């Protein structure tokens, strides 16, 4: 029991924060820095996907579509001269609003129907991005998107986002915000109703949860954060095209989520950092890389459907089984039920 409390101490959070804050001094080069920054953004997207897919059990495959809406929103608005700090929330809200409009019909469906309906919506977004030439620039996309507007500070002057370090702290702040919101949500009563729907929708309905409204809420919040990460992405990468909304991105995040650990808070982050690093290291395999990846995906989903976190947890539990101190049931409930009911 003492061990568990030890890791629940506040200073431990601070240690991680300190670690994250020192990353700019630890990375060996701009290449790794770039990957870390992109991983932070993708971790945001994966975390939000986790809310609807992992915790609420509704497999939304339109996530990159909403990421794209956020990206185009920020790209077009900042190019029109609007401040990034105004464009970003507006774009994220736009993504959330479109999410609401799409959620109203699609969330009435279940299981594979919902997955396919949302996938179709994702494809529609990228087709529109490519075809509405007068607005989106067609397949050429939007180029020359400005970096986030500098923030004026008294005394020290303006904080601009041209350096990688500044960009890193920006994405880190938003990642922490996302993590914070997700943490508060998941461990709240609302979070329990998300999981109740995932575990048994009929039962959730029977105990008085408004399942439709709850699903909508989860979907809208998830899409808000997808739009948010997309908006920051557009500003940092500087040019976007319909591939920004491609369903291949959704698939990537799905892979991060599943290999990292679905319905956990750490899993999506771990996945979003570990898989890109792995992919970069496997570049020498060229096209064989995806061959191995495809097999890996099947193997993991069959043998460890809760991903890396599932493996770690089972190893952890085994080692703890020797220890008379048992894990409290409460955490399990919050972490996502029994492993075999992961989704």
């Amino acid at each position: 029991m003492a061990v568990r409390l030890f890791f629940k101490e506040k200073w431990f959070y601070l240690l991680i924060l300190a670690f994250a804050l020192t990353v700019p001094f630890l990375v060996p080069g701009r290449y790794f820095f770039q990957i870390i920054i992109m991983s932070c953004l993708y971790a945001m997207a994966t975390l939000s996907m986790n809310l609807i897919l992992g915790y609420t059990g509704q497999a939304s495959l339109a996530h990159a579509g909403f990421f794209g809406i956020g990206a185009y929103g920020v790209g077009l608005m900042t190019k029109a001269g609007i401040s990034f700090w105004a464009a970003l929330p507006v774009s994220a809200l736009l993504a959330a609003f479109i999410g609401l409009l799409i959620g109203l019909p699609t969330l009435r469906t279940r299981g594979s129907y919902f997955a396919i309906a949302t996938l179709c919506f994702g494809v529609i977004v990228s087709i529109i991005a490519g075809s509405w030439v007068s607005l989106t620039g067609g397949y050429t996309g939007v180029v020359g998107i400005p970096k986030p507007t500098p923030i004026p500070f008294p005394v020290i002057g303006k904080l601009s986002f041209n350096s990688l370090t500044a960009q890193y702290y920006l994405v880190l702040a938003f990642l922490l915000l996302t993590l914070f919101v997700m943490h508060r949500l998941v461990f709240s009563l609302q979070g329990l109703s998300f999981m109740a729907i995932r575990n048994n929708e009929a039962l959730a309905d029977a105990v008085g949860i408004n399942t439709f409204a709850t699903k909508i809420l989860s979907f809208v919040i998830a899409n808000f954060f997808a739009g948010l990460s997309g908006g920051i992405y557009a500003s940092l990468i500087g040019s976007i095209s319909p591939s920004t909304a491609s369903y291949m991105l959704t698939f990537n995040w799905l892979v991060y989520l599943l290999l990292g650990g679905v319905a956990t808070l750490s899993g999506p982050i771990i996945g979003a950092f570990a898989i890109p690093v792995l992919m970069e290291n496997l570049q020498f395999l060229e096209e064989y890389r995806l061959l191995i990846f495809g097999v890996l995906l099947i193997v993991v989903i069959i043998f460890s459907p809760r991903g890396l976190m599932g493996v770690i947890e089972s190893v952890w539990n085994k080692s703890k089984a020797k220890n008379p101190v048992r894990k409290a049931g409460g955490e399990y409930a919050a972490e996502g039920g029994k492993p075999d009911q992961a989704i």
Partner: protein
Amino acid sequence: MKIKRIVFILSLILMAYLSTGCGGSKQSSEAPKSESQQPAKEVVIGYTGPLSGPAAQYGQDNFNGVDMAVNDINEAGGIDVNGQKYTFKLEKLDDMADPTQAVNNARRLRDQFKTPAIFNPVFTTIAPIMEINKESGNEFLIMAYTSTPAVDDLNNELTVSIPPPFTAYVRGFSDMAWDQGWRNAAMVITLGAYGDEWRKAFKEYWENKLGGKVTADQPANYYTETDFSSQLTAALSTKPDVLVIGGPSAPTGLVIEQARTLGYKGGFILIDQAKMDYIVDDIFGGKTDLMEGAVGVAAVADIPTQMASTFNKKYNEKYKVHNTWEAVLNYCAMKALAQAMVKAGTVEDVKAIRAAFPKVFPLNGDKNPAEYYGINSTGRMLLPGAVQIIKDGKYSEPTSYVYWPKNEDEFNKLKEIMTTPNPSKYMPLENYINR
């Protein structure tokens, strides 16, 4: 519990980063070792492009051109920069035409190999790389294979664009088609960045400048579709003299075949993304009968230079695939880059290398498979658009359309330095004559 896991994993990941970082630096520390045995130093040239996914063949063609130039330069003993010998090493990375991956790759190439120049052949990945190539101390040149004028408008001072702008081809093709007496044109062009711009530019030029008529505009997605009969049926019902088609070469071949099947007897204009010789050789088995009356980019074997045919042969032997303009022009661009390093007297100072580019030209056709005559202020290397038509089953002699001289006088001066006798025409592009 969770927190501990996060820390554990985060430290694992950090270790992975650090270990790959060490891997990178190890590579660079090996280089000086070999240097003590051989006098020549090595410069790494980067390539990032789609080497898997739907555009993989295109990415490979581009890569092959650079690769062949690097091999040729090294075989000839490398380059001499202020008395120091340098050879080249080409590092390739796959970005699947994904912008995020392309930026990662560019960073990696610059970080780990200190490469002064990176080749990339896709506009939507070139644009994000342009955001990072001017960082002080980490500059690199982008060798951009893209014919969209949008890249010139971005005016990145460390970018060199390799092919002619597609608008030069719009003029050239239209001119040749007009000379055939064709007046009514129907378009079945691919969707996508390139196709969109082509449709707009062609309609504008054909109707407003030449006074012809575009009778139908039925775009089709050449990347995802295989049956074009519905668009073709609609386009052909307007009884056009010429059908303007094109996208990637292979589906363009299909469109030609399907149009002929539907009874179409007229001519074609193939947008410059599609290559006539590839379609004839690899899709129609060398037969030109379906392609009668097709106007398009000149066949690589007919490029009007002395070296073109030997290059063609050597390329086919080495890579066992059809030679393409992508390979030819990237070859020339790599040669130009090497020459620019010599003229600049440095392999590291990227700005100096870029500044030395104008001194490299003309790039003559006896040592290069294509001839370049200069570079403009936005970094586009200047080469005429070579256009051919297939008539009576044979390729015509290619006509070179020169788009950049300010006036006829400059054009005539340019003609004097051209080493090839083929016909050339002056067809100025408003956006380029003052660059």
